[in-house]
């Protein structure tokens, strides 16, 4: 005896992005928390040490936030004009920032007053950073110079004016305290060696450089500027490895995630894109306005994004995995014995084995179809689709049941003897979904709908004539209208298809081939639907 085969609900393959491990990883963030700053957030940086506080530079303030607090832990308001490039030292205890006035100030994260003040730049200092020994500070300024300062004495050690335009990006090497990279609006990225006393490498980015970034191995360098993100191989003497053009506006910031060193870039086009190791975009975050700064916490727990309208958006990673682990641990200890009970019993030679039959679980409409209660099955199926809870909203189930009834030749029976209300429900369902392109992604479904429903409509019209209800009549008219419009649309689409066909045919050099390789299912459904 074969078991009852439930109605096959046709699932439509989701078009577009495919779900990969990366997508799942990057999707696993909570909804962003918005913190309003006074002006555009130009720089965000995470402290390398736990608890991974982050410093946010916006307007005249530099604020330090804790990883979970919405209120700043500490605020530095010593600047008279806009502050730029707030940056931690490697131990997270000191903080340096430049400003519009050309001053560079050094703070203790515990204190409030500036410990040091480096003067010497004649124009705004947009980038500051500690060198990896922690005793020197580098700065890049609009006066075309990049300088290195001594923290202990507060004096300027070196000054290089090799760039011919504003310096807006800099990155210090973590492995060598004497190396740092600067990017400038003169379209170049330069690698400086303090020991040599000048730049040792120059790379042509081709666009004003907005940010530079060194990979932890420091063999690769990322520069962003214009719509391009370029990766350079420093070990090969600054050879360009790859040039990415995935944003459609200037790429303003870039950072690396901790796991697998995935590259993230933020742009004025309001997107943050995540690249995999072969530099393909694997995920995309959308934001409300143009992005100026971006930072990822060292353990990927937090993604902080600063925008032009002064909003700091912070996303926290979901803790689901941990929770599950904890729960699993708590449950597993007693549960193991329960589950194993009787399972590991090996029957002896002369034991009589009685197997327990597994009960097949059926949906409600399947149970009704099994008993040939066609009318009830249709009711149940319609209930599913008009359910107010969106979670249980499954028009494809309704359609599947209708198709099944049609296949069984009992659609008429299921429709017979219905009152006005149930017919209204049915008609409303049809009106809603008869050309539901937007609701259900693929067009194939439409074909299915219409196909099964033509017979349907005929049946209903019979009923309506008998019922002679004004309300039903109106609904039916609306449905007819919709169908007419849909037919027109399909006709137009066919025309477009024809035009495209001729275009393709004229493009292909081969003479004999007549049909272009149009995705077949697409074409098929359109033709049939029309």
């Amino acid at each position, binding site marked *: 005896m074969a*078991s009852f*085969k439930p109605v096959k609900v046709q699932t439509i393959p989701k078009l577009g992005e*495919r779900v*990969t491990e990366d997508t799942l990883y990057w999707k696993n963030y909570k909804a962003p928390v918005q913190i309003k700053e006074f002006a555009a957030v130009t720089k965000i940086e995470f402290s390398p040490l736990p608890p991974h506080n982050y410093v946010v530079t916006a307007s005249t303030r530099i604020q330090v936030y804790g990883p979970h607090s919405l209120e700043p832990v500490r605020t530095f308001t010593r600047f008279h004009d806009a502050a730029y490039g707030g940056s931690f030292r490697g131990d997270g205890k000191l903080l340096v920032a430049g400003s519009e006035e050309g001053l560079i100030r050094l703070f203790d994260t515990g204190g409030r007053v500036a410990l040091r003040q480096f003067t010497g730049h004649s124009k705004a200092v947009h980038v500051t950073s500690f060198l990896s020994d922690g005793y020197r500070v580098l700065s890049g300024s609009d006066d075309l110079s990049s300088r290195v300062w001594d923290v202990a004495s507060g004096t300027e050690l070196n000054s290089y004016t090799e760039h011919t335009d504003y310096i807006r990006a800099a990155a210090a090497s973590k492995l060598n305290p004497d190396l740092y990279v600067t990017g400038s609006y003169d379209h170049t990225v330069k690698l400086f060696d303090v020991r040599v006393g000048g730049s040792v490498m120059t790379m042509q980015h081709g666009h004003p450089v907005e940010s530079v970034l060194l990979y932890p191995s420091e063999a690769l360098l990322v520069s962003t500027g214009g719509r391009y993100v370029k990766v350079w191989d420093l070990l090969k003497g600054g050879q360009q490895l790859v040039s990415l053009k995935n944003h459609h506006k200037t790429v303003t910031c870039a950072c690396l995630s901790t796991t697998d060193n995935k590259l993230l870039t933020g742009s004025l086009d309001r997107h943050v894109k995540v690249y995999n190791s072969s530099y393909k975009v694997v995920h995309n975050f959308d934001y409300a306005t143009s992005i100026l700064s971006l930072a990822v916490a060292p353990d990927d727990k937090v993604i902080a994004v600063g925008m032009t309208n002064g909003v700091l958006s912070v996303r926290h990673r979901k803790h689901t995995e941990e929770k599950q682990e904890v729960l699993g641990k708590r449950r597993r200890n007693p549960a193991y014995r329960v589950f194993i009970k009787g399972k590991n019993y090996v029957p002896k030679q002369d034991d009589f084995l009685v197997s327990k039959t597994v009960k097949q679980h059926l949906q409600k409409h399947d149970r009704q179809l099994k008993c040939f209660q066609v009318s009830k099955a249709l009711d149940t199926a319609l209930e599913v689709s008009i359910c107010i809870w969106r979670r249980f909203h499954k028009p494809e189930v309704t359609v599947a049941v209708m198709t099944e009834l049609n296949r069984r030749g009992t659609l008429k029976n299921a429709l017979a003897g219905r009152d006005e209300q149930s017919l209204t429900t049915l008609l409303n369902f049809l009106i809603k979904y008869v050309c539901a392109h937007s609701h259900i992604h693929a067009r194939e479904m439409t074909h299915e709908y219409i196909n099964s429903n033509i017979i349907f409509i005929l049946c209903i019209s019979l009923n309506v004539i008998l019922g002679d209800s004004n309300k039903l009549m109106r609904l039916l008219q609306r449905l007819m209208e919709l169908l007419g419009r849909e037919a027109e649309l399909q006709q137009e689409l066919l025309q477009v298809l024809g035009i495209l066909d001729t275009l393709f045919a004229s493009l292909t050099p081969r003479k004999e*081939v007549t049909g272009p390789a149009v995705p*077949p*299912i697409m074409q098929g459904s359109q033709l049939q639907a029309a």
Partner: protein
Amino acid sequence: MVEESGIRVVRCGGNKISFRAPIISKDSRYEFLLCASGDLVKVFSTSTEECVHVLEGHTGQVTGVILNPTNHLQVYSCSADGTIRLWDFIDGILIKFFLAVSKSVFVSPENFQLVALHLPKVPEQEVEAREMSAVLCNISSNPGSTAMGRGGEYVASVMGRQLTVYFFKKLKTYRFSLKATDKKGAKNAFTCVACHPKDDCIATGHEDGKIRLWRNFNQKKEYTYSTQHWHHDAVGTLCFTTEGMHLLSGGVESVLVQWHCEEVNKKDFLPRLGGAISHICVSPDGQMYSTSHLDNKINIIHCSLKLSAVIQGLVKGNIWTDLMIDPRTRALVMNGRPGHLQFYSLQQDKQLYSLDIVQQEYINQEGLDQFEVMRAAFSVGGTWLATVEERGRCTSDLESSLKLWVYNEKAQSFELNTTITAAHQDRIMHMCFSPSTETTMLVTTAWDNQFKVWLLGLDSDTQKEHASWSCDYVGSYHGLQPTNCCFSSDGSLLAVSFKEVVTIWSSDTWELLTTLCQPPGPIRELCFGRLSCSKYLLGTTAKNLFCWNLLTCSLEWSTPMDVCLLRSDPLSENVVAFSLHSGNTDLFVFRPSEPRPLFTQKAVCGGKVQRCVFSPREEPLDSCDERFQWLNRSRLYFLTELMELLTFSTKAEDERILNSRKQLLVDDSVAVTPFYLLLGKHRQQQEEKQNSGVSQAADRVQPPQASVAIKELLHTPAHVLPAASFLCSMFVNSLLISNTGSRNLQEEKPFSFPLCSGTNGQICWLGM
């Protein structure tokens, strides 16, 4: 001529086992089910579903089997060859042979008679039974419409709208007829009848699905009947259980309905058994039921309505797919149950398994348009299976889907990989896999004037190894309808026939390389040569057989011949062509390189050959005769118009089969029961002892108290022991001093006894 050639056409299995009602019998250990299958009677074991014996001897279709009422280990079978045979089915030997009647009785097949045949008691093996008397005239040819009641007191038969009851003792006939139509226009005709074994009650089934229970039918006027109705279509068969507690009925719905005779409204159901139920039978002890289905299947059901075993033969319904050989199991693959593909082992004459393609509930209702598997194709290694299912063939709105199945090594079965709905806008006519090993490629041709190439795409992005099929190329040629497609043996060329034109495409670039045209008439079949003949392309039209050489792109040879089927052997260069010639089909075997055929046989079978397939042999034959060398590597199976599966068999092969055939014996190991544990071991020991040292006097004078078994027997609680009468003889025997001479006598006895047992006044059904 056939004998001379040393080659003959033989039928290979696939006989209908549900043609007549089977019977269930039991010896001390095993239960057997006997059923008529072609001109054989097959004995199946109900527990293992294996065929344990084949009773061979009849020369015509076996039309009925019945147990010997006096010995449940013997069976009578009657056949269309006019003989009745008595068999011992445990050992599979013929005991008696009754030449029932002279052939002249069977002249008019329209008019069936029920005759009583007296089987004479004579010691000879071959007996001519002459004494017979007609009981009822003009009965239905269906044996289900005649039934014996209450230990043979009366016989009831239905025909049309009339029920006839004949009492043997009174020699009286009563006829009861129903009106032509009921009030609601129901069809009142009888379809089947069954008699209560203990009570005077007759159950009849009707075309409108009603069941009537007749009582008081031993008088003309005051008979009564009550009506039950559950079946929505005609009642196919009826059967009372042994004690008469229940009535079983079945029909097209394929639901076994168990009616309780006492409580009229109570019934139990066992649904979804398979095809329409054609026969139900009950074992003599009432423990087992069996239902025979039209799709060549017998279900064995426990009386608690639990399915216990399924015996499935070759399903021969409508066959739309080609005959195929599964490269893995070497099973024959074709349409099976509706919506399924069956994998049928040709060697074992047994269905291996049935693959559910449609995966939808089949509604057992006539006139319903349901999905059917129309095309199927295997890839070369058997890893991929492509199927096309269709619905709405008669109406305008065709629904079809192309499904691709991948073989899962772990699960040892095919799993659905990709479903493509509406792969083409019209019916798919033909499809084939590319034989090349690098790419997995499928080509489909359809009536929408296109052929499509499908490729297996591997996704490197995703972590999971999930490959699915997608369309790679759509081709057409001047808006003509493609009919056939065929890949060359290396997979580099694809030939697609468009009406009269054969187009050759390169499978790498999908460039049209050349066209071959040989009017008049559209191309019917297309086939590439293999191995050394791979440069040849064969094509057939209604009148001619063509062979093109693809190196020169010219016609090599052609011959006027109406070829209806063309197939190449995958293991050799040979190509087989069937040609219809004046009502008979002729067979030609040839190589594309030479137009002279290797082998021809006229009139292989009557009518048109529907399908054929080459099945590779497990071990090649080494036939030295040049004319039969084409049968060395593979075997040719073909399906005729009458749905008979035929094949060619050489003389050497026949002999080998005859020699190697061993009667399958029932496994002699005794079931391990507590009683066996007690006494069986002891007996074995004893036997061993007797065999080893019978002469040892010490053993013989062994005092009985020493026997451990008897001690055990005496110390076991009485309620766990079998009946005392059963144990008695054994017990006494064990106390006696054993003697070798007495054992021989015991063995002879069961053989001599049934031979002299009376078979008084047997009535056998001779409905043909």
